[in-house]
């Protein structure tokens, strides 16, 4: 029987994968993918908890997150294109211009 814990473990694993992606990846586009994975990890947790508690609020929250993630990607990808046009690269090591 698949219970809440299984979903939460999946969610945690996905979040960890996303986090590692955020930490390890150098490409901005890949960072976006990694954050999407983390957001979806949260969505899974919300949906699972909502089902388990019989409360729709969690699922509504998951929808909100999807909507916001979509708009974020729309804006973010636009910026990425601009950055790529300006610098010819999306590698963060090459974009480090604000050294303190």
């Amino acid at each position, binding site marked *: 029987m698949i219970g809440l814990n299984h979903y939460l473990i999946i969610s945690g694993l996905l979040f960890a994968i996303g986090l590692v992606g955020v*930490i390890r990846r150098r490409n901005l586009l890949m960072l976006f993918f990694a954050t999407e994975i983390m957001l979806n990890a949260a969505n899974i947790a919300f949906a699972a908890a909502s089902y388990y508690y019989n409360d729709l609020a969690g699922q509504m929250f998951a929808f909100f997150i999807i909507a916001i993630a979509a708009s974020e990607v729309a804006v973010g990808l636009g910026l990425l294109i601009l950055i790529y046009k300006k610098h010819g690269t999306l590698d963060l090591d090459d974009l480090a211009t604000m050294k*303190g």
Partner: protein
Amino acid sequence: MMESLVYIALFTPLVSALFAGLFGMSQRQVFVGIVSSMLLFVSFIASALLAYHVATTGNSVSVTLMDWIVVANLSIPFGFVVDHVSVTMMVVVTLVSTVVHIYSIGYMDHDKSFNRFFSYLSAFVFSMMVLVMSDNFAGLFIGWEGVGVCSWLLIGFWYHKADAPREKNPSISPSWAANEAFIMNRIADLGMLIGLFILFWHTGSLQYDVVFAQIPELPSIVLTLAAIALFIGAMGKSAQFPLHTWLTDAMEGPTPVSALIHAATMVTAGVFLVIRAYPLFELTPEVSYFIAALGTFVAFFAASMALVNRDLKRIIAFSTLSQLGYMFAAAGLGAYWIALFHLAAHAFFKALLFLGGGNVMHAMHDELDIFKMGGLKKYMKWTHVYMFLASLSLAGIPIFAGFFSKDAIIETAFNEGTLVLWSILVLTAGMTAFYSFRQIFLTFWGDERHNIEHPHEMYKFALVAMSPLALLAVIAGWFKNDFNSFVINLLPNYEMSEHTHHLVWYLGAIVLAFALAGIILAWVKYGKGLKRNEKVENRFVYKLLANQYYIPQIYEALISKPYAELSKFLWKKVDMRIVDAIVDGIANFIYTTGDEMRKMQTGNLSHYLNWMAGGAVFLLIFAGLLSMLG
């Protein structure tokens, strides 16, 4: 009417100080001196009218300007009282300071800080008036500190003069002397403050009348402690041993200052305090006897140093010290009115002597060594006359003021049966006569040992201004009985016993014989000019006296030097190594951590994300730990 006179007497010197202060930074302007002198004269007139009022009606005038400190059961008003004692002081102070102000117009003629000088001098008079007129110990203390500050300002008036080694100039420099005077007085003031605290603690008030009404009921140990503490304050201001060294060093100030502050008025404040607080000192006979003994000792001690000194002003300063000793002897023996009488008489002839000394300095282009003078009689006729009269008065020659007052003190010592004190005072009278005439003869008589073409006499107006002092130095003593009946309205009378009365002529004759012997000895040794005797000058006693018993050196070796070493130790070891090190350590820690943390900011987004993730994990662990522990 009387009330406004009190305010006029008190505040015109303040107005004068503020007025002169307005021009403090500007060029010499004679009118500043004239206006100041006129204001001081107004103050003198007001004081004289008050004296007349007090003498004719016998009532004292008290006014309360305002409440000053009112906290819980402590109430100290700014109150002033003009009674028989304070009015005497007021007249003396304002008279001498008026003369000194006028004199200073001439004396400070070439000084570029002319205006500043008048400002300080008037401020001094104001403080002195507060001191003598206050009707409570707190006001007295304010005046006490005020005169201390003004004295500091005036001793160090020529603060730009460089330091000289002690062998060359025993007082090093004006600023050094000013600091010495101020610090010595601070030490004594602590004693004074403790005395005030003791009195307040036990009586709950600082008003003279309240305190004195209550003290007969206090335990004698309290009274003794209060009397000792107050007398320590008096010792500082009146330069009694062992706090005496500042007075001669204070001669670094301009001569009018020496005349007004370090001879006539401020240094007598200690005597005034003892007189003012006589109900306390009457109840503590041991302390009073100590005062008398110390006064007698200082009289002798200071006179002995004056015997061989070569510095014109220092001789007069030592003589001031010696005369203060006489005053304390009288006050300590219970003859308060005689002490006050000698205080007044001394103020006149000593101020005159100092101003005369100022004339000589002027003529000699600031040379002070009397071994390099001589024969000035024919150039400076009036100065010679004035100084001669003042010296006769100081030496206690009959008909002159000093005779009446000093003789009375010596008689008191006999009357009290303290024959040791009496004999020392008689001997000191002889020494006084010797050193004052040694000075006169070396300065004005004999061969000319200076190399000044034509020594010039002081300005006419300054000489005229000195004339009231000269007159009083001669005649002040004639009013002894009037003065007695005037002040015994307030002070306890002191009368000689029947026995002393019988012997009074003999006693007078003994003192006079000593005084005349002193003068004759001075004439024999110095009247015809200076004959230096190397053998005498190399004797141990001579050197001891000429070096002030090596007391300044002893103080320096035993107090100043160790104190400086201690300060250095505290500075280098405690302050730099501990206090500063801690403060610097904190700053350094913050600075280095900041510097290290700065390296986090690489500009690389990926690194920031790592830090953020690390921080989030850390916070998560932290929160987890908290929830587990809590």
